[in-house]
């Protein structure tokens, strides 16, 4: 686990970078068994089409560049691509947008990902406190985190009972428990993720500054969860 993650981190550091692009961040997360969609990094449109066929349409394209961390601002994400023709068109479009946004942007490739079925959005994050060390954050995504700041933290390492308490501590917990006739969300999957993140952070604490898994889709009980986007910032 640690060796694979360190290989990626050291690769990024060797290039003089302090932040991992989504693809790299997800490789680190994968090393710790966190739930990720089947995704591939394509270097050409042809390669992207090949991967899209393996994954199955519709797919998503996300352009990976160390200079573009806010992908939606730069409009380098294309959703719901139905077939090869559309993929080729969107491929050109997101490259064009990247050049307009940052003419000097180095492009590492394009992530070809499946369109995920939507779930309840949550965020899992990591930060480092100067006195207490790394802490993991949990909250509901979207406006709950942006506006209401409905999040809770625990210091690493986190025990299972702490992970459960994190989920139950947030004000929006009823949304996960199943408000208004909804089925409850897969909270066991979230606890498992929080514990894996805690382990990852404990292993990599000398390297890691901040991390966002945002959003994470959590599905109904028994159906798991999926990390949609991820960012890691190194010390």
């Amino acid at each position, binding site marked *: 686990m640690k060796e694979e993650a360190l290989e990626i981190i050291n690769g990024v550091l060797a290039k003089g970078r302090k932040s991992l692009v989504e693809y790299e961040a997800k490789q680190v997360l994968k090393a710790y068994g966190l739930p990720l969609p089947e995704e591939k990094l394509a270097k050409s449109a042809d390669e992207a089409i090949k991967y899209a066929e393996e994954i199955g349409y519709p797919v998503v394209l996300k352009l990976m560049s160390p200079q573009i961390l806010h992908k939606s601002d730069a409009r380098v994400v294309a959703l719901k691509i139905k077939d090869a023709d559309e993929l080729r068109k969107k491929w050109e479009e997101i490259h064009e947008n990247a050049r307009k946004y940052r003419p000097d942007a180095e492009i590492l490739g394009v992530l070809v990902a499946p369109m995920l079925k939507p779930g309840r959005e949550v965020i899992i*994050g990591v*930060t480092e*406190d100067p006195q*207490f060390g790394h802490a993991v954050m949990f909250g509901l995504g979207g406006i709950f985190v942006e506006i209401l700041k409905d999040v*809770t933290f625990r*210091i690493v390492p986190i025990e299972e009972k702490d992970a459960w308490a994190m989920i139950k501590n947030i004000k929006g917990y009823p949304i996960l428990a199943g408000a208004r006739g909804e089925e409850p969300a897969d909270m066991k999957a979230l606890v498992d993720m929080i514990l894996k993140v805690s382990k990852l952070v404990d292993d990599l604490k000398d390297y890691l500054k901040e*991390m966002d898994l*945002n959003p994470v889709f959590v599905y109904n009980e028994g159906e798991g969860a999926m990390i949609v986007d991820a960012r890691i910032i190194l010390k």
Partner: protein
Amino acid sequence: MEKPRIVEELKPFFEPKGVAIIGATDKKGKVGNVIFENFKMNKEKGIFKGNIYPVNLKLDEIEGYKVYKNVREVPEDAELAVISIPAKFVPATMKDIAEKGIKAVVIITGGFGELGEEGKKMERDILQTAKENGIRIVGPNCVGIYAPDTGVDTVFLPENKMDRPSSGNIAFVTQSGAFAAAMLDWAAMAGIGISKMVSYGNKLDVDDADLMDYFIHDEQTKVVTLYIEGVKEGRKFIEAARRITAVKPVIALKSGKTEYGAKAASSHTGALAGADTIYDAVFKQTGILRAEDFEHMFDVAKAFAKCKLPKGDRVGIITDGGGAGVMASDAVAKFGLKMAELSKETIDFLKEKFPPHAVAGNPTDVVGDTDAQRYKYAIEAFVNDPNVDAIVIITLFQVPLLDEMELIDILAEYAQKSDKPIVAVAMGGKKTEYYAKILEDKGIPVYMTPERGVRAVAGLVQYAKYLEKLGE
């Protein structure tokens, strides 16, 4: 449990055989004089059992006590040194203390780390001397120690300006000296008993974690209260906190709720992580109860000092005033507790014993024409009811037929024999305060409002739940 080294290391701060007061003087009002007078007075009262050795280069004698020119000359039984001389002389004095072999030092003097590079360098020198010689330091820039049972009192605010609280079961640890003084004065007035108070100021050496470890083994201390401005060694704090909360409750008041996190964060999480949210996390994970304010901290501490722990979160309320009962019920919901559903036996028993206009239920309202006996029926029933985990008894002592002392004795009797926590709420003025004081002396915590009483119970429940989870 095996006692760690810290217990032996800190013992001389609280029960020294002899104390060297470095900077003792006969000039009234000076820090070195107040500290000397504190020890002298406590010795005369027979509370301080050790010997007192004033140290001052310029004096031969203070009020009949021989004065030593240098701490190196004091008799061998000196185990504690209290320093109140100007900062620039402290590093050299530390060397003398080391040579003497004294292992516990309270540095009252300010003007070190808080005043720039020169002071920081002196602090480093002092700490180095301490480390090389196995000396522990409380301070600098602090008011030090107050231990009512052994008469150690380095608080340099004189007795005629600041009252001292009596002996009790609550330990109080604070960074701020001003807060220490204000709180001791207030605790004396409020009748809150203190086991030990430590104000550590710049905490060059002894910190919250050391003191938590010490208090685990201090039999007199039942509950620890902390006033924290900032923690330097977070990991050490977390570990010590976990150790003590497994056996004793800790309540913390953390000042500085302002957020700093947003300033330099490049991630969402970083932007959301304020210092305060992190402290919240630390307290939750270590089982420390967080107080909203000063009043909250001591309300809960008082409950821990006097009450048993509840087995659950179901509260039973007994009142002689309807409005107060409603206020208490609201507070039960507000603080996340549950109203107990009384058993049929309880309801039947109360209906049989009560006149028709009294209310058998939760709250049980013994109403304004109650006597002490009606309260007794209610308490008896609640104590025996398996659906009730904690009992809040509201007594408006003003009602005409109530024999106050009879009721107080009934409460004391049940608080003693029941295994459930019982807290009392007494609203009123001077007369109420008089009876509340008697009630507290008999071991029942009394609160001014239903909300404060219920909030104290919520603290007991929160800690009981933490212990339960810990045992799983």
